[in-house]
């Protein structure tokens, strides 16, 4: 058998042959083809679902944020802030009371002191001006005049004052800072206001002491607090034993009184 015969035999028998393709192959091919316009809608729908899920999550997140506001820790934080606000409020209103004192301090006993005061006024105009503004309604005309004078003078050139005092700029700077410190002293300690101090400490102590209580215990303790009994007369606890001891006779005796 020659080479050509073999080639012809196979070429004739195989070249234009047909063999039925396996069933289900088209489905496999179709699965790997790029999506057509009809099937391209699917991702869009999916995208919508994702968007809906995102919005839902966002809403849940916001909801939780507000829900968390009811959390005891955050409540305590809020109360602390409130207390701070209460503390700072009187502090702002104090200058009217202290302003006259400051004004008195400004009163020129000795010429030197006045000049120093003037310079402090120049270095800390904001504070002094605030004090002045606040004090205006309460101080007498005389005091007003005394306060007014430094305000008018502190615009005067600093050099002139230095010449009067016969001191170097560095020295003057030191003296002014010392004076400024002396000036600030009465305003600084906010705790000095006795009522506020009590308020602060009492509140914080309360928060720390507070143990975990169930609703029932809370209510009962609330009642106990309102009927004005001694601390040991009525006691409630969260324990499994759940003992409640109420000394009614004592309370009755006290109520009668």
């Amino acid at each position, binding site marked *: *058998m020659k*080479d050509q015969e*073999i*080639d012809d*035999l*196979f*070429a004739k*028998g*195989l*070249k*234009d*042959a*047909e*063999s*039925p*393709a*396996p069933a289900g*192959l*088209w489905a*496999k*091919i*179709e699965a*790997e*083809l*790029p999506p*057509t*316009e*009809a*099937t391209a809608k699917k991702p869009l729908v999916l995208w919508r679902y994702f968007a809906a899920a995102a919005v839902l999550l966002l809403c849940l997140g916001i909801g939780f944020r507000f829900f968390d506001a009811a959390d005891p820790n955050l409540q305590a934080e809020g109360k602390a802030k409130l207390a701070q606000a209460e503390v700072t409020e009187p502090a702002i209103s104090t200058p009217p009371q202290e302003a006259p004192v400051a004004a008195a301090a400004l009163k020129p006993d000795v010429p030197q002191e006045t000049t120093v005061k003037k310079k402090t006024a120049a270095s800390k105009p904001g504070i002094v001006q605030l004090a002045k503004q606040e004090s205006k309604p309460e101080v007498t005309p005389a005091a007003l005049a005394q306060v007014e004078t430094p305000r008018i003078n502190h615009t005067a050139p600093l050099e002139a004052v230095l010449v009067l005092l016969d001191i170097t700029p560095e020295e003057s700077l030191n003296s002014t800072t010392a004076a400024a410190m002396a000036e600030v002293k009465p305003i600084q300690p906010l705790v000095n206001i006795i009522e506020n101090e009590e308020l602060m400490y009492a509140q914080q102590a309360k928060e720390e002491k507070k143990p975990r209580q169930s609703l029932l215990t809370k209510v009962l303790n609330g009642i106990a607090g309102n009927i004005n009994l001694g601390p040991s007369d009525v006691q409630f606890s969260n324990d499994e034993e759940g003992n409640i001891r109420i000394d009614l006779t004592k309370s009755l005796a006290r109520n009668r009184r």
Partner: protein
Amino acid sequence: MEPGKVLHIWDRCKQNDRKAQAELYQLYASKMYAVCLRYARDNFEAEDMLQQGFIKVFNKGAQFEGTGVLEGWIRRIMVNTAIETYRRHKITFVSVESEAAVSTADSSHFSLGHMDYKDLLKLVQELPIGYRTVFNLYAIEGYSHREIAEMLNISEGNSKSQLSRARAWLRERILKMEELGI
């Protein structure tokens, strides 16, 4: 089917029309499956080739300008897919010289004239992969040794020797079958 209609289907295929793609597949699947079977070791490998080939046809549709015959272009894609398979398997299978026993199952009255498609295909499929690919490309597809050397990334001499070995292998098998048939 007249060429005009085929080209119309092809135009729709290029626009990713799924229905037209299915029609084209129906039109050429059996012919191309026959091509794949010649290059494949078995039906499963041929099926894989056919699948990959058709995916290429639809994805690279823009590359066919319509200047040649569509069927010829699709056939070339199938052959190229087969060559890719050959490249993948060459390293693992080139040294394995199939020493398969002569099949005697359906060779009771054997002669060249009576060898049908199934017998011929069986013989080709039983060829070692190197012989099979070169024999297919040269004897059936009609490529020259130079073209085959380029396609398979081998030397022209290698292509020639592979072809002569393939012929010898087939001749031996056919003679044995004839002997058994007589």
